[in-house]
């Protein structure tokens, strides 16, 4: 049982990492970046090349993943989002799905269709917790998600740049009048989210392997995490991620592996119906 729970937490942590990425971008620019999960997918391939081809030590691999994530994030914002300013959400839906598809397509062409094992942290083994075997990598990934969520939350609440991002999400025009460069905030958010999400890939890849369609499932489940936790809340993203991961593992264990995704889907429908603002979401009134 404890083995199932720890596996659920670590899977949930991966969803939480992507959900945190969604949030960083969403808070600063009100854009939902459908492609966010693909940054983790690309990251696993970068980690693969960094280790298997160039033999880099893990800190350098993390750095390399972060740089690639940052660059792709910047490109996405400049090429697919910024040009839309004023045309509305309708087109963002299309272009971010497009970027996501491009990233998956690029991975397929470059690295091929087969899942490949990433080289880092593969032999970490297991430790005994209350008599059950728990993977060390599971604990590590869970810890990373918790650190990431609390770190980003603290930076958002305490630093000038974090407050500026909150301000521009609250009221874009007022933030501009206060001298906040809203455009640079948006670009910065895509870069930071891309870098942070991709940087976790050397760890995550040890569990998921590198495969070009890794992002599909991650994208929806991270969205479920966000729907549970509430858009804009980092604590919510973390808790939502854990709930999804645990449900998935428990569903697989007690109902059978085919039920793993179906149970999450049912949860999503229920959450959207009965908890539209999520656990930690906020509401707004003014419309006219």
């Amino acid at each position: 049982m404890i083995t199932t729970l720890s596996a659920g937490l670590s899977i949930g942590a991966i969803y939480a990492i992507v959900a945190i990425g969604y949030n960083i971008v969403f808070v600063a620019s009100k854009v939902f970046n459908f492609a966010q999960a693909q940054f983790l997918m690309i990251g696993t391939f970068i980690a693969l090349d960094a280790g298997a081809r160039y033999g880099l030590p893990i800190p350098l691999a993390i750095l390399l993943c972060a740089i690639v994530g940052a660059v792709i994030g910047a490109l996405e914002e400049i090429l697919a989002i910024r040009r839309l300013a004023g045309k509305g959400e309708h087109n963002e839906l299309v272009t971010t799905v497009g970027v996501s598809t491009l990233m998956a397509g690029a991975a397929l062409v470059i690295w091929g269709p087969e899942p490949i094992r990433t080289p880092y942290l593969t032999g970490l083994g297991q430790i005994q917790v209350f008599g059950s075997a728990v993977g060390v990598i599971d604990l590590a990934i869970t810890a990373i998600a918790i650190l990431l969520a609390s770190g980003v939350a603290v930076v958002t609440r305490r630093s000038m740049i974090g407050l500026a991002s909150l301000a521009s999400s609250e009221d874009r025009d007022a933030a501009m009048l206060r001298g906040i460069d809203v455009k640079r905030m948006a670009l910065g958010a895509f870069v930071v989210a891309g870098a942070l999400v991709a940087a976790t890939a050397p760890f995550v890849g040890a569990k998921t392997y590198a495969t070009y369609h890794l992002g599909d499932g991650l994208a929806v489940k991270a969205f479920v995490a966000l729907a549970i936790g509430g858009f804009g809340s980092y604590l919510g993203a973390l808790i939502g991620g854990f709930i999804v991961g645990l449900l998935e593992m428990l569903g697989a264990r007690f109902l059978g592996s085919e039920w793993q995704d179906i149970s999450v889907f049912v949860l999503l429908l229920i959450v959207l119906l009965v908890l539209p603002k999520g656990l930690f979401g906020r509401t707004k009134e003014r419309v006219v």
Partner: protein
Amino acid sequence: MTVKMSYRKFVRTPFWILPIALAAVLLVLPFTGVSNGTLRIIVSIALLSMLVVGLNMTFGYAGELALGQSALYAVGAYFAGYLAIHQWDLSLTLIIGIIAAAAVGIITGIPGIRLGSWSLAMVTFFLVLLVPKVAQLIPEITGGAAGLSGIPLPVLFGQKLDSTGYYMLVIIVAAIFIALLRNFVTSRHGAALKVMRESPVLARSLGMALPRLKLAAYMVGALPAGAAGALFAYQDGYISPGSFAFTVAIAILASSIIGGSESIYGAIFGAAILTIGPLRTTGVQEYSLLLFGALLVLGGIFFTGGLAGFLNKVIRSRFVDDELLPDVEAALGAPLPLEKVNGQDLEITDLKKAFGGNQALGGVSLSAKAGQVTALIGPNGSGKTTLLNIVSGFYNPDSGVIKIGGNHVTGFKPHRLAVAGVSRTFQSPLVPKSMTVAECVASARYARRRTSILADMLYLPSARRARREDREEAIRLLSILGIVEHADRRAFDLSLGMRRILEVARALAGDPALILLDEPASGLDESEVETLSNVIRRVSAAGGTIVIVEHNFEMIMSIADQVNVLHLGSIIASGEPQSVRNDPDVVESYLGKAAREQLERELAGGDK
């Protein structure tokens, strides 16, 4: 120099003959010796067109992205395939495939649409990922990962169809669905979707229940997906989860973008381009994701409107002039008086509203009588707009009672208030860009006189009658208010002053018990204010109840029967215009203490 077609002729030209002619040509094609390979491609285009035209309902017309068309396609295909293996007739498998897709559509649509923006996209995307999982869950029905094989050739009403028969069936079913969906988007429901997409606030104030409207569009779009799936099951006699992968969902979206999401026939272009291009050439399969991704990014940025939108624009601007239509000319020749407006009394008691710690309204009581203009004035931040937004339902009051014609309407949602007779205008007029003036006015009648979606899709006499009456009523009101010559112009091209009058006409079209005017004179010049004042006087003289929020003091003095002055969320004076004008409290709130003292000196001097 091109010769322009008259607008009169353009409106009357039956352009729908073109697609019917296309279908007719396609139907005789098998008898002209065209190869089976070509016919097979045409079948693929027809099936993809059905999926795309369905997506266009949700994405192009309702403004919600759905990625699950391929999953609904799968649902239709598996149901039809399974039943066909068990010797069911195609007439039944087709209908059951459609119903099954619609059922899955409703289960995903209700939660997905409730939150708006990304939730429908994600719920439906999830649905696509679930197709192989569900197939594995019930392998005895779906054949699991290996797929469902042995689906026989279709049997329609007991007759076995050969491949030519199958081909003709696909063309006919596709043509029927495209016609049904075309009727849907040109109906009043389509107009309501247009309003909603451009301004949800306006749509709600016109009595449209947005989630229901979006769900309707999504359901209408699910039908052809189910039908296409059911037909697809027979194409090779074999289906597997691979036929409905995410790539298919992306290809559908890309076709929609290329052809133009807000169009019907564009779906056929888009489907044809994608089928003849990337989907057929197997050598580029590895690159198909890259290609689709690039198409989506470029299409989303540069190609809004797609091919259909582009053609439409070119034809309208190059080949059509703006001659008046006959009914407009007739209305111009014989201006009408405004008959009766069925205004009701508005009674507001002790209304309170706070935003956080800011008490915007601190117990306001107010009444407005039918046949009168009741004005609400006061400095900025005094609570006028808050009051208006509460009466039209956009804010919920903290306490207090609102009655219209004696009926409680406190706390009603905007669309329910609209149905109860509340019509309003906006500080900056809300006129949808893509609608004509007459269409704008007619859109207010949507919630008052319902027509069923089915009647509209089948273009039944009731739908035709409703459409004709909408037009007649719009022309009548525009003619009464003196702007009928602009009836068929784009509403967005009107001057600000005329847009305000258009908003009054739209308010009247809803048969209003109460008309709320939100700063209608701001930004108008003197003669425009005079025209608007005349319109307002005529409406109130015909029995309308008018509540007007306005800064233009002179205008209020000339048209109002009752004036209420708000200051910091409370009414400090009310009465006839002249008495309010000389009220010391009012003068102080507007002009300061010195002005009050001067007024009091003057009044004292006058008494001597």
